[in-house]
């Protein structure tokens, strides 16, 4: 008898347990039974203890250095600042709610980011979704957020292709400046004003590089600067000596490197080693971070005259002085991102104002509010240029600067658009000073 039990009952029981585990594990959580209606005459506000902000970020992998220097520290700052004020007042809950971040590591993998974004929305049911890191990543994340009706104000990334898709992405708002919005038009004008005649472009073979290379071609042509080479290098490229030698032989007036830190840093090193010092050098993303300045022996004076994309510094306004000081204190050294963080800084202001003004966390209501209002942020008057009923792009007229340059060991804002918000903190040094002799 026991043998029969062992033969049949035990395996069947295991199967049953496995099935039940799967069913219970997969089953949707049943909502708790509704409490009996309270005798109070007015309906009680629903219970909620905090506003959960979810983000899939590159805590590891190739994009981690950018994430660590850009939106990463800003999220820590916001958590401290907003919670120090008691949180965000949400009328539908009748009180101020503190914010808390739920951050997953996407390991710089788009597929993982997509899965984690869906987990944040569907499983964790976060109240606010924050941006992933990188143009490819936000390009993949925006349709997902849109699919589930979650507002997404993007951070590290922006592209012409992304702008072209905004009419179909009503929940997406792009904050960062990019190629023709309005960096390279400004830079091309600056070069032309100084009498530059030729440009040499090296760009990484991805969405960022292709776009900047293409827009560079158009903008330099517009101002009469001849692009003598536009070379695309694979993302895995590691030996840059030949590339820099060829560029040096071409003797351009303007040298552009539209790539990421793993390429920007060694190209700078090769330029120093080979004594290649054209009158104008622009690099990015990479040269716009504090770590770039100290990567060549620790003294930022070494990279004197290197230009990059930058929006603001401590001299732009007292609010930005406070912003960069707070970031430096948090990180422990001046590893600032002078391009991105000034444009990401308004994100939390926008969320706070939209939630407090509408009194709800309802994404549709918040989306409509953001789409139709101007906000008073660190940038001043800030708004999104809307694409019909689609998404929005932070208006270029809100940018306080477009081009920065390393001068005396720090980042100065030397180029901006022709609109009132622009604040230049120094003149552009052209030609760029020689690299220091070793």
């Amino acid at each position, binding site marked *: 008898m026991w043998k029969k039990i*062992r033969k049949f009952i035990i395996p069947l029981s295991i199967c049953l347990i496995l099935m039940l585990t799967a069913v219970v594990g997969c089953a949707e959580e049943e909502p708790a039974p509704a409490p009996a209606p309270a005798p109070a005459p007015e309906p009680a506000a629903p219970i909620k203890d905090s506003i959960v902000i979810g983000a899939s970020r590159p805590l590891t992998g190739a994009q981690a250095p950018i994430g660590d220097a850009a939106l990463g520290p800003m999220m820590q700052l916001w958590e401290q600042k907003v919670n120090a004020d008691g949180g965000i007042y949400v009328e539908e809950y009748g009180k101020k709610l503190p914010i808390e971040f739920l951050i997953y590591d996407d390991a710089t*993998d788009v597929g993982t980011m997509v*899965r984690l974004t869906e987990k944040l929305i569907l499983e964790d049911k976060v109240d606010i979704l924050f941006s992933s890191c990188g143009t490819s990543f936000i390009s993949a994340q925006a349709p997902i957020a849109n699919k589930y009706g979650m507002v997404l104000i993007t951070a590290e990334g922006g592209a012409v292709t992304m702008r072209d898709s905004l009419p179909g992405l009503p929940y997406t708002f792009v904050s960062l400046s990019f190629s023709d919005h309005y960096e390279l038009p400004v830079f091309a004008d600056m070069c032309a004003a100084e009498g530059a005649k030729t440009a040499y472009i090296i760009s990484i073979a991805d*969405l960022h590089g292709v776009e900047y290379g293409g827009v560079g071609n158009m903008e330099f042509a517009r101002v009469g600067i001849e692009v003598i080479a536009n070379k695309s290098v*694979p993302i895995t490229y590691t030996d840059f000596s030949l590339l820099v030698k060829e560029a040096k032989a071409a003797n351009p007036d303007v040298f552009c490197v539209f790539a990421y830190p793993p390429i920007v840093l060694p190209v700078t090193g090769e330029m120093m080693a080979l004594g290649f010092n054209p009158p104008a050098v622009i690099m990015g993303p990479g040269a716009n971070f504090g770590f770039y300045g100290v990567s060549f022996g620790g003294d930022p004076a070494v990279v004197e005259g290197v230009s990059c994309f930058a929006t603001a510094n401590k001299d732009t306004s007292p609010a930005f002085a406070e912003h960069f000081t707070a970031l430096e204190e948090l990180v422990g050294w001046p590893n600032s991102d002078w391009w991105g963080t000034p444009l990401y800084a308004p994100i939390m202001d926008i969320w706070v104002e939209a939630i407090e003004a509408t009194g709800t966390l309802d994404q549709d209501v918040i989306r409509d509010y953001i789409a139709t209002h101007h906000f008073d942020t660190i940038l001043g008057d800030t708004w999104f240029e809307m694409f019909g009923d689609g998404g929005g792009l932070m208006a270029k007229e809100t940018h306080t600067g477009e081009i920065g340059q390393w001068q005396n060991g720090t980042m100065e804002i030397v180029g901006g658009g022709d609109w009132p918000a622009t604040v230049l903190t120094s003149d552009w040094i052209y030609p760029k000073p020689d690299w220091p002799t070793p």
Partner: protein
Amino acid sequence: MNITAFTFKKSLVPGLLLVILVALVTLPIYGSLYNVILVTSILMYANLTVSWVLFSGSTGYMSLATAAFFGIGIYASALFLPTTGAVFPVLVVVLIGGLASSLVALGVGALTLRLRGIYFAIFTFVLVVLIMELGIWWELSVSHLLGRYVILVDNNVIFYTMLGIFVLVMLTTFFIRRSKFGLAMRSIGENEEAASHIGINVTMVKVITFAISAFFMGATGAIWATKLTYVDPHVAFNVLFSFMPVLMAIFGGMGNIYGPVIGAALFAYLQETLQTEFPEIYMISFGFILVAVILYLPNGVLGLIQKLWKRISGGKRAHT
């Protein structure tokens, strides 16, 4: 012979499979949307792993071309399911993705399956890089459109398509293993020269198996692209997808067709849990688990299950 025990033994595995299949088919009814998405992800890995084992597990040829075939499928969707308007229905594009990968595998296989050992492994890995670089060149020089957007597809459609591919790849593997063709593949895996001497057209067998395996990888990539929604060559030809199926197959055990499935499911679930619950120790713990499995479970998790089952049933119920 104990007929009752024999019948039970014969019917346990098919019965269990049927139960699992029913549970999967009905998942969108009783499961949460996120669980459907999670299982879709697990099925994607299972498809790649079983497809990989179908060729590499039998013939002994270590292929690292999975990412190439998977990426070709992804690009099939990028080309035929753009957000500007789908050219074909989703299922047709899935078929196109599979056939395109299969065609590439036929061509590449015919040229290179004479290579053996490490040379074949390196070649297949280089193939991924080559196709990615070709893709970049094409997009840069011809289409001038490096990033492409793919239409959004309902999660249940993606799930059922992935499940359909899973059932097909399992059935294909099952029947091939029990056919003369499967026997020829195993002969090649054990001793290729001997197989050739007994009259097996080893090159043809290898090339056809390579193409069948690539078909499922491509089809899986095509439907997976509708989850990614954004595609560029770096996203499509991610070399991670060349190594994951190998690790999953080792993790689960390659002794029979269930091992890779168990490996893929456990691996993907572990990845999900560790990545979200223990992000600080995710990679470390993942590494430890893999090392432990390779050192102490040479036949994978399935080998352990079989061992335990053998011990429980007194050595009479082991399915080896």
